[in-house]
């Protein structure tokens, strides 16, 4: 009973501190809004996706087209709304996949050391030797580009960075007194890893995870920019941005500013959330104040 009360109090204190952080509130509101837009895309988009009309090519901002049209005469606002789906889908799925794999591999590798560590780290090295977008580019050239190719290819290399980060932290923690002490008390290996070591790894992981998510969103847009992302009727922010290289930027600022702005907003919102969570989770922070 007492434990429960203590727990509840702690929860209330946590919520209050987070909700008082403007970065968290602003970031969460923006991301929630983006998710809502992505879910409701078929309902709120002003035009059908296939409604390209060459007579309205690069039409200016007007009451009919709030953000103007692109080179195919497609309504820019409609593309932005549907593009939110692609960005959020690819981003969240990729990060979920790669972080889960990375945390597991990093913990095991750093904790057990020896030959286990060696094998896992060599696998990490092999995957890591294909930097970021490179494997995705090669894969989509060979497999034919699609959304799932993008998720698969980014996650295949993405898990390695969190694995390395976790391992590095575990290595420098494993000899600390509090770990040695609980080992002396007979704590099992699983308990040592999950209860004693993992909590100390969260702080850098959260910062890393935020960067991963925003990074994946930018990489996805980059692949689309290069023509290697989602294909067919699906419109993406990166694909819209790639038109900026074909047209006179000064005349059609909206075509490049709108998708750039959407990417910017989403990434900034995610970084706000990551920052506020980092300050919040960090137990050492208390000492400074």
């Amino acid at each position, binding site marked *: 009973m007492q434990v429960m009360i203590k727990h509840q109090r702690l929860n209330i204190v946590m919520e209050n501190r987070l909700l008082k952080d403007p970065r968290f509130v602003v970031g969460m509101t923006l991301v929630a809004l983006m998710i809502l837009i992505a879910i409701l895309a078929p309902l709120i988009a002003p035009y059908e996706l296939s409604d390209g009309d060459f007579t309205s090519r690069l039409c200016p901002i007007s009451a009919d087209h709030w953000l103007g049209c692109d080179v195919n005469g497609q309504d820019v606002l409609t593309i932005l709304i549907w593009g939110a789906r692609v960005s959020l889908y690819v981003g969240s799925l990729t990060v979920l996949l790669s972080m889960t794999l990375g945390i597991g591999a990093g913990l095991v590798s750093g904790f057990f050391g020896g030959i286990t560590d060696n094998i896992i780290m060599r696998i990490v090295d092999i995957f890591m030797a*294909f930097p970021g977008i490179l494997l995705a580019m090669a894969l989509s050239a060979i497999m034919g580009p699609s959304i799932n190719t993008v998720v698969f290819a980014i996650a295949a290399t993405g898990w390695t960075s969190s694995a390395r980060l976790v391992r590095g932290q575990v290595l420098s923690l494993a000899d600390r007194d509090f770990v040695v002490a609980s080992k002396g008390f007979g704590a099992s290996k699983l308990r040592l890893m999950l209860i004693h070591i993992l909590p100390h790894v969260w702080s850098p992981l959260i910062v890393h995870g935020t960067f991963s998510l925003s990074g994946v969103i930018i990489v996805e*847009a980059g692949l689309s920019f290069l023509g290697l992302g989602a294909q067919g009727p699906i419109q993406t922010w990166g694909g819209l941005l790639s038109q900026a290289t074909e047209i006179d930027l000064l005349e059609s600022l909206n075509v490049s500013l709108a998708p750039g702005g959407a990417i910017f907003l989403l990434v900034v919102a995610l970084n706000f959330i990551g920052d506020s969570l980092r300050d919040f989770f960090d137990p050492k922070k208390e000492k400074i104040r």
Partner: protein
Amino acid sequence: MLAFILKRLASLLPVCLGVLIVIASLTRLVPGDPVEAILGDYATEEDKQAMRKSLNLDEPISNQVFAYFKGVFQGDLGDSIVYSEPVWAMIVSRLPATIELAIASLLVALLISIPAGIISAYKPRGLIDFSAMSVAIAGVAIPNFWLGPVLVLFFSVYLGWLPVSERSDLSSYILPAITMGTALSAALSRITRNSFLDVMSEDFVRTAYAKGGSDIRVLIKHCLRNASLPVVTVVGLQFGVLVTGAVITEKIFDWPGVGSLLLEGIHTRDYTVIQGCVLVFSASYLLVNLATDIIYAVVDPRIRFASHD
């Protein structure tokens, strides 16, 4: 220390083998027929057979991998399918442009991020911290494929200060290096700040202050070494972002580097060129990571000794 480096070099061998196997079997690992993809729907069966033979696709995968291995160790990455030129020569002629660009953008990133991170951490939540981190957040969030064209538009077209594209004198490096280095410097300054904040709340820092150490002495002598660990890691990790940036930046600025060669290869489905470029980028990435690990061990003796167990 020498033992550590040798050990690390030895452990690099299996990784190189693994990378080579993945690259050599790249065309086999994924579903679909690469020959169909290269030649398109209108090719005759004879053309397809000839293409399979020239790509070694008619042989079992082990032979294919072995043949690629043999070629790589003889400095032969095969001939380009489209240009019928040796891929190795094509890459070598374009390598300097990419390396110069990478170094320039790394310089831009380090010169901005390390001082910005330290100053921000010194007075957290102060005015400098707030503005530096706001700029850093913006820097991470602005995609380089948007920043590049905007920079060109403003500095080259509108102001006319800098060349539009193509590699010529030193001034032609400025815009590409900024385009490529911005995201990196933003990420690095955030990590530098976070890492310094973590270290500055440690007991030994309080002890150093208690002994009467000045701010600069404590920051440089006691914090820098401890705080640099994550920063070094991130520089190594972010090299991948830099390579990604190279491909996109080279496309925007018409830069005659390996990145634009890779893009060309992808658009013409030139498999040997794709394989060669991926190999070169991967090899450089491995070297950077080797350097990162060595620096890591120099900075933190615990890691050096842990690897001896």
